[in-house]
C-alpha cells in the first residue's frame, strides 16, 4: 500500500476511482494504462478500486467514476444509475459517453427493428436507441475525444487530486492546428471540421493530415452555417458535411437543423431571416 501524499505540505487523500464501460470499444479506458513513461506516477495519484479492463478486484465504494460508452440497452440504465448513486463525481469519458459516439449512427435509421435484423439477424438481443449518459444521470464533467488524449486525462486527474480548477478549451481545433503550423487541410483539398470542433486534442488528426471529424463536439462559438458555405466553396456537398457532423453525435442539434433545411429549403430560409 503506497504511503500518504502531500502537495506543498498539504496532505492529499488518494481518491478512490472506478472506471466503467457501457456500449463502446473500450479504447478510452485503455488510454488510462497508456503512456508507460508516466504510468506509475499517474496511478499513484489515485486508488483504483474498480477497473474491469485492467484489474480483477471490483469494489463498490468509489469517489470518482469515469464512465465510458453510450447507453443502448435497458439494463445499462440500471447499472449507470447505480454508479451515479455511489460516485461523488461522475466523469463522462470519451465521445460515446458524452454524445453517443459512433454507436449513435444507428439512430439515423427510422426503423430500428430493421437495423437490429440487419446486424444481428435472428439472434435475440436487447437493443434500443443509442443515447449519451447525460440523458439518464447528472454528469459532472466531460472528457471529450475519441479517444481523449492521455495528457488531458493526466491533467484532469492531477487537478482533481490537488483541488485545482479544470478548464477545457472553448475555441475550435483551428487554434491548435495553426499553433502547430500545419498546412490547412482545405488548401490540400480535404474537408475538415476543425473550424467548428472543440479543441483540446492538439489537432491530433490534422497534424497527421487527416481532416477533423468532430469527435469532441462543437466549440462554443461554432459557426456551422459559415463552415457549410466554406465547404461549398471548396466543392464539398451538404451530404459530406452532414456525414462528418453526424459521425460522433456531438453535433446532433446542428445536423437536425441542416436536415430540416434540406427537406424544407424555403421554410428554413424564411426562419433564418427572422
Amino acid at each position: 500500500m503506497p504511503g500518504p501524499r502531500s502537495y506543498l505540505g498539504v496532505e492529499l487523500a488518494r481518491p478512490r476511482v472506478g472506471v466503467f464501460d457501457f456500449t463502446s470499444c473500450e479504447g478510452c479506458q485503455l488510454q488510462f494504462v497508456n503512456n508507460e513513461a508516466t504510468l506509475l506516477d499517474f496511478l499513484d495519484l489515485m486508488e483504483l478500486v474498480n477497473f474491469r479492463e485492467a484489474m480483477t478486484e471490483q469494489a463498490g465504494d468509489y469517489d470518482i467514476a469515469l464512465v465510458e460508452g453510450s447507453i443502448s440497452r435497458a439494463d445499462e440504465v440500471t447499472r449507470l444509475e447505480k454508479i451515479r448513486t455511489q460516485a461523488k463525481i461522475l466523469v463522462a469519458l470519451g465521445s460515446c459517453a458524452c454524445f453517443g459516439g459512433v454507436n449513435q449512427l444507428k439512430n439515423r435509421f427510422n426503423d430500428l427493428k430493421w437495423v437490429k435484423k440487419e446486424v444481428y439477424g435472428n439472434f435475440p438481443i436487447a437493443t434500443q436507441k443509442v443515447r449519451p449518459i447525460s440523458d439518464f444521470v447528472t454528469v459532472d464533467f466531460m472528457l471529450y475525444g475519441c479517444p481523449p488524449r492521455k495528457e488531458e486525462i493526466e491533467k484532469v486527474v492531477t487537478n482533481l487530486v490537488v483541488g485545482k480548477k479544470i478548464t477545457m478549451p472553448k475555441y475550435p481545433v483551428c487554434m491548435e492546428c495553426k499553433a502547430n503550423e500545419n498546412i490547412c487541410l482545405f488548401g490540400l483539398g480535404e474537408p475538415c471540421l476543425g473550424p467548428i470542433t472543440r479543441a483540446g486534442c492538439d489537432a491530433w488528426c490534422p497534424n497527421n493530415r487527416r481532416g477533423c471529424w468532430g469527435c469532441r463536439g462543437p466549440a462554443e462559438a461554432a459557426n456551422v452555417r459559415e463552415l457549410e458555405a466554406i465547404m461549398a466553396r471548396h466543392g464539398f456537398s451538404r451530404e459530406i458535411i452532414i456525414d462528418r457532423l453526424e459521425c460522433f453525435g456531438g453535433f446532433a442539434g446542428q445536423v437536425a437543423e441542416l436536415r430540416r433545411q434540406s427537406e424544407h429549403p424555403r421554410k428554413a430560409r424564411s426562419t433564418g431571416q427572422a
Partner: protein
Amino acid sequence: MIFATFSAKELPRLFDLLAANTVVGPVKKGTDSAGRPLYDFDVVYRFQDLRLDYPATIHSAKRHFLPHRESLCTFTMQGNDWEKQVDYNIYKPVVFFGLHACDINALNKLDKVLTAPPYPNPYYTAKRRNMFIIGQDCQPQPQCFCRSMGTDTALRGFDLFLTDLGDRYFAEILSATAYQFLRKIATRPPTVKDHDRYKEVVAERNRRFTTTVDTSDLTKLLDLEFESPAWQQWGDKCLSCGTCANVCPTCYCYGVEETVDLDLTGAAKTKYLYSCNLIDFAEVAGGHNFRPQTATRLKYRYYHKHRGFVEAYEEPLCVGCGRCGEACLAGITVPAVLASVRARGA
C-alpha cells in the same frame, strides 16, 4: 548606411559562414491541391533548401521569437517549500535568412511593446538580442498591402538587407556583425551602374502592388463607425477560430496556464499565444464575458490594430502582409473589412 555589392555565387559562401549557428529561412513546405508550392519558415541546414525567391509564407516567423507555447518558469516542491526556476529559453543566436520588409517591420513593432517600458518581456528580448537578420527584397503578391501600412521598406531592425539584381546582390549593411561577415566573402563597393540597377529593381517592384487600403483619418473613421452594420456582417462570417492571430506576425496576446506535475513534486507556468477572436478572450474571474458576440470581438481586433495602437505608437499594429486574409477560410481580409467600414456596410 553602408552599401556593398557581391556576386550571386558568393551567397552560398555567406550562408555556410553563418550556418555554424541555427539558420531560419523560407523553405518549401508542400503543394496545395491546385499544384501551387507552399512556403514557410523553418530551420535550414543546406543553402539549396533556402527558397529566397519565395512569394510569401503561410505563417510568420513568429514561433522562433514568440513561440505559440513557451515555458515561463518551473517550480520544484520540497516539503512545505518550493523553488522557482526561470529559463528565458535562449541558448544560441539564430540567423534569420531572407525576411521580407514586412516581417522585419513586424519585429520593429513588437519591439515597441515587448522590449520597452513599462513591461519589457525578458523572454522575447533575450531572443531578439540574439538574432542576426538578413532581409530580402520581395515580389508583391495580390494579398500584400504593406505600402498602405508604411511597411514596404525596412529602415532598421535588420543586420543586412539584400536586393537581388539578377547576377549580383545589392547589400545594405546595418550592423558591425554584418560588416565583419561580409569581409569574409568577395564584395565590392557599388558602382553608379549598381545604384541605377537597384533603383530600377525597386521601382519595378513598387509598380506591382495591386492592393491598397485607404488609411486616411482611419483612427477617426473607426471612432465614428463604431456602430457600423459592417461589423455585424463580418461577424456573421467569422469562425472565432483564432487563425488570423496565429498567422499574424504582430499578434502577441497570450494566456498563462499553471500545471502541476503528475508526481506532485513540480509545477510549471506556461505562456500560450491567444487570440482576441476566441469566445473567452474577454471572460474574467467570476465568469462574466465582456465580448460574447463574435462581431464585437472581430471589431475589437481591428480597433486594437488600426486605432488603439496607432494612438499609442503612431503606427498601426499591422504590416499588410495579408497572411490573415489568405488563411481565413471565411475570406475575411483587412482591405475588405476596412473598405466596408468606410463605405458603411459590406
